[in-house]
């Protein structure tokens, strides 16, 4: 091999070996680097998975509340142990008050979704909910149906190949266009 070729080929070969080691020993970092630097289809797919996880989280949440705390869907609930405890703490509080809270997610509008590091993500969404309280014993309405809209920031983590919600906080997000009264 000529000297000139050697000076080009060897550094590139070294770079190739580095990337190979990265892909084998640090898979998450490697794919995260690819995602962030190239964007494209894979990034869109990851973000779509994050959004689906948040939607699933909220759907199963409404089931827990509407059933008064029946944990039938607990295994499918994409949430950390701490969040699960928090949900059932709230359900217990409602039960002690003799109430059931029936939630209904009318709309979920993503604002930003970011894959922040290998295996973690943050998403800000605007959620519009209808809710009403019922008597826990006989299911008679205790309040009129009401609507509310608020921003939420979710923190997610990849665990065993799937996204789970590990935390959330209310977020000050501008309400997306229109809707008043009861949200369909």
């Amino acid at each position, binding site marked *: 091999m000529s000297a000139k070729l050697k000076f080009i080929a*060897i*550094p590139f070969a*070294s770079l190739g070996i*580095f990337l190979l080691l*990265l892909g084998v*020993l640090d898979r998450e970092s490697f794919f995260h680097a690819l995602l962030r630097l190239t964007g494209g289809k894979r990034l869109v797919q990851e973000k779509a998975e994050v959004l689906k996880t948040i939607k699933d989280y909220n759907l199963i949440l409404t089931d827990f509340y509407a059933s008064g705390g029946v944990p039938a869907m607990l295994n499918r609930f994409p949430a950390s142990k701490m969040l699960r405890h928090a949900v059932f703490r709230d359900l*217990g509080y409602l039960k002690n008050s003799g109430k059931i809270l029936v939630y209904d997610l009318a709309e979920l509008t993503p604002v930003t979704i970011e894959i922040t*590091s290998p295996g973690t993500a943050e998403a800000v969404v605007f959620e519009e909910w209808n809710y009403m309280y019922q008597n826990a014993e006989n299911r008679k309405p205790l309040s009129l149906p009401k609507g509310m809209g*608020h921003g939420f920031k979710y923190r997610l983590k990849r665990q065993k190949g799937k996204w789970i919600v590990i935390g959330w906080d*209310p977020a000050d997000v501008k309400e997306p266009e229109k809707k008043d009264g009861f949200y369909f």
Partner: protein
Amino acid sequence: MKVRPLKISAIPGHRLFFASLALPLLLWYVSAVYGMGLPPAEAVDVAAFRIFYALLFVPVIIELVASLQRKTFHRLLVAAGLLLLLAQGVLHYGFRFSGTIALGENEPFEGYHKVDAGVWVRNTPVPIALAKVTDDAGKKFIIYLNGRQKKLALNEPFSWQGLRLRITEQRTAPLFFVDTAKGEQVDAANIKLGLVAAERDFFQMGLLPHRFYIGPATEKGTAESPVPDSLHLKIVRDKLVIFDEDISKKVPLFFEGHSIKYEDGTPWVVIRAERFRTPYALYLGLLLVFAGALSRRRIAGRKDETAS
């Protein structure tokens, strides 16, 4: 048969080897930190980076030995300098430590609030308690460090087992009370505000599922006191935002069969702990590399003179 000792300088291409190892490290670091926004500590904490970094020592040691054998002074300086710089990198990666401790009056050390530590460092517990914050202008903080009393001023350094510590901030934690509608106390606590980002700064009281988010009041009051006369309170119970307005000191706010209010609380301090060792290897390494480069320029200059 006579065996000739291998001359290290006979090993070809060690400089190319060095460049080939350094290139991917540099590219990865720049793209991870500036392209992906990863913290530098995370960027270097990948196995591929650590393997290539460790391999960098090989060509540098070869160069060091070769320059000793050939007695080329300037190359020896540069190689020794590079070796020290690489070693400093390892020391920083493995042994760096900095942490933050949040302590209220009469509160002992229970752990670090935030830590940035190298892989070979164990968190060093500090037997410290904040006894009192006085009104003195100078040494106003009275602490107990391993049972011994010390009076300290703000930012005055003190040490414990190789850690350099200092009190960097003093704040006041408002005292929050949550009662039932009948006036029975559910819980009371001094809340250290500002330990995390405001949007995630919430606390819970007793067994209530409600989250209480506290932040600066929307409309700032005129009175100056350690605890503001009004704060912004957001009460959230799962998806429902129960309350989202300013509240005034000592004025109860009623919500869902309970009430919450706050009063002046107790002082607390932020203590910064660092294990700091003067990076002698870094300074010496840079000096040697610089000296080697200068020496090489002089030699090249003399050669030019001789040739002309």
